[in-house]
């Protein structure tokens, strides 16, 4: 029955994998030891979500594709992640803003999914809900510190929010418009406290869910998939 449910679960898995991979790029580069571990923790939460979701997507498809087959043996056009999560890490403010904008959506999304009719997805959502709530809290806290910090950190935080804003509309496509009011409220509350300005809702980027990605995804996949492509089914 590969089709809508398969694509839906696969898109969620791809969001988690790609964002988790982006956070893993901070390993060894974070501004503080404490934040190094915090970013890695968030990344590992997301990769854990991706694994459960890939297992489930593979089961829905019923062609014997496992986590590795789905994560490592598909090309960019077959990935259905949001364009937001593949955007480069940039500076620390950009990474914080990207995670904040996504987690402000993911926290209520997973919370609502805990009561989904689909028992497997509801089960995955139960664990993801707690994780997303913490990711939101952690990144909101940082965004407020950066926005309401020094002139330099304020400018960087505002630039990050402005640059990523056109990628936020895509989250509310495919039946998720009902999550918009809570997201708007979270964003408004945190931006005010952070003394940051909410960008105007203009033209929004779209296409990630249907495989039309920015150039960044190809580079991510080249690094992520190299080993399995060069040495299929390698074990060590």
């Amino acid at each position, binding site marked *: 029955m590969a089709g809508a449910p398969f694509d839906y679960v696969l898109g969620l898995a791809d969001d988690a994998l790609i964002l988790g991979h982006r956070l893993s790029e901070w390993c060894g580069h974070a501004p503080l030891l404490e*934040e190094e*571990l*915090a970013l890695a*923790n968030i990344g590992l939460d997301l990769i854990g979500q991706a694994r459960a979701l890939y297992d489930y997507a593979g089961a829905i498809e019923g062609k014997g594709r496992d986590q590795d087959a789905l994560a490592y043996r598909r090309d960019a056009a077959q990935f259905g992640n949001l364009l937001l999560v593949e955007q480069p890490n940039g500076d620390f403010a950009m990474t914080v803003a990207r995670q904040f904008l996504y987690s402000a959506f993911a926290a209520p999304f997973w919370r609502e999914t805990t009561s989904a009719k689909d028992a497997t997805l509801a089960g995955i959502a139960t664990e993801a809900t707690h994780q997303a709530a913490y990711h939101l809290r952690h990144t909101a*806290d940082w965004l407020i510190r950066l926005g309401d910090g020094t002139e330099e950190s304020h400018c960087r935080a505002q630039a990050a929010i402005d640059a990523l804003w056109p990628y936020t509309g895509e989250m509310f496509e495919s039946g998720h418009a009902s999550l918009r009011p809570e997201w708007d409220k979270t964003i408004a509350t945190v931006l005010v406290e952070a003394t940051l300005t909410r960008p105007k809702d203009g033209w929004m980027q779209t296409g990630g869910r249907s495989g039309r990605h920015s150039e960044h995804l190809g580079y991510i996949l080249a690094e992520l998939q190299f080993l399995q492509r060069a040495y299929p089914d390698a074990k060590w």
Partner: protein
Amino acid sequence: MTDPLMPLWEVFIRAKAGLSHRHVGSVHAADAEMALTAARDVYTRRGEGVSLWVVPSGAITASDPGDETELFEPATAKPYRHPTFYTVPKEVGDM
């Protein structure tokens, strides 16, 4: 490293209800809230606890290692203060 913006905080974790908080290490943070978050991320990755305390390191007054002899030596000469001379009745079981 002494950074006035990011001072040191000592971290204490309660492993489970009923046990006391134990010192596990320290983190750098701008304020108590950030210290708690950092402590969570650094020290509770493997299910170490159910409660966290953070205390500014500067708030701790420590004994001088040079005073070790006069402070602690007298106690080592008083083994009778240890409750090892009592016979524990069988009914008590494991203590």
